[in-house]
């Protein structure tokens, strides 16, 4: 894990340019592959470890929910790192409040999508569940947890992922730092003890 940006940018990036087509973080290297781009890494691991969809219906469900949920995360990223103009804080407040106002209907749609299934693909745990967990968890840290708690099905889903063997131990370890979500110069979610405004 990189804790100091200069370690990556000043030292390693040059060497990584030899190894990787698109040097970036995260990157993943094993005996067979050298990959960047988090979805590419996730899918490779999904195929390798039997955590991929097993039929067209599951694959479609996985892709649709991924894109939908990632759109939320990208909106959050966007409002965290606005262009450097004088009124960026004001713009951030506006966007964050708008996002929060739309949150119940977004979470409701995800709840309906999940329905009675245990996992987002359907009956089988797939790699998609790990990233959906991550975004839902980010939402309950960037906004008051009660926003997510209003949807017991989603709370149960998130708990289900947290209880998975291997995942449980990781989340309890020092290696998992739930906060900060964004870097130190972001407009929110940028400190260990960040407190949501809404």
């Amino acid at each position, binding site marked *: 894990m990189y804790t100091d940006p200069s370690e990556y940018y000043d030292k390693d990036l040059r060497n990584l340019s030899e190894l990787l087509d698109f040097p970036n973080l995260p990157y993943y290297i094993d005996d067979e*592959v050298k990959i960047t781009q988090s*979805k590419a890494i996730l899918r490779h691991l999904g195929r390798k470890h039997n955590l991929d969809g097993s039929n067209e219906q599951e*694959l479609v469900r996985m*892709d649709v929910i991924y*894109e939908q949920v990632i759109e939320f995360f990208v909106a959050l990223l966007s409002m965290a790192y606005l262009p*450097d103009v004088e009124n960026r804080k004001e713009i951030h407040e506006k966007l964050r409040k708008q996002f929060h106002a739309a949150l119940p209907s977004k979470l409701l749609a995800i709840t309906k999508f999940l329905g009675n299934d245990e996992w987002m693909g359907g009956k089988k745990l797939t790699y998609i569940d790990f990233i959906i967990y991550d975004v839902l968890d980010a939402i309950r840290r960037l906004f008051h947890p009660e926003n997510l708690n209003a949807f017991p099905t989603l709370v149960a889903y998130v708990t289900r992922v947290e209880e998975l063997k291997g995942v449980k131990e990781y989340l309890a370890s020092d290696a998992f730092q739930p906060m900060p979500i964004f870097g130190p110069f972001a407009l929110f979610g940028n400190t260990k003890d960040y407190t949501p405004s809404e």
Partner: protein
Amino acid sequence: MKPLLVYWDVRGRATYLRMILHYAGVDFEDKRYKFEVTESQKAYSDYKKWFQEDKIKLQGILDFPNLPYYMDDTVRMTQSRAILEHLGRKHHLDGRNEQELFRIDMIYDVLADIGFILGEIAYPPPVENRQEIHDKTRKAYAETLPAQLASISKFLGSNDWMAGNHLTYVDFYAYDILDDNRKLFDPKHINQFPNLVAYLRRIEELKGVKEFLASPAFQPMLIMGPLALFGGSETRVPTE
């Protein structure tokens, strides 16, 4: 049922879906919601019909009603990437081995990052100084363009297609994003990379694609909607 693809009447997130369907020789309905910009510069007409009527009617039919959406005998879905991948699997235009699969995924995300930024530049937040924000972000992006194109060019290398030896769904997406860049920015940037120029031409020559790109349905310059700060008009001269 005849497969149905529905989107706005612009390139946006539908061009690569239209291209793959035309390449696969699918007889589909290419339904579009039109923009009509009034004197007060507010787009209306089909815009209202989508947001106030049809989108609401689709609740219960689509999990997340949105444009584009696609329906055929087996699926009813949204999200352009999900649709593209479904069509890729359906029409034998997916990666065939692990190497092709992760090459597709890597380049897709690289291209998607570019597509996302272009959207952000085109549609800054609705504040008074949005033109200032647009100019700033457009210029900042233009400075990164040569390096981004260089790494995509290097990734393609001497392959015919992004995955390697086989045409796959990602090539239609790559065409659209790269072509967006040579329309929104000076084509001189992409012309520095002969393999990318040849790659685009190779896609333009594909049977089915060639006819579509030559037709009025393509609308090469209408990349974004009419209210975008760039990419929304037929006549635009790039400034960078």
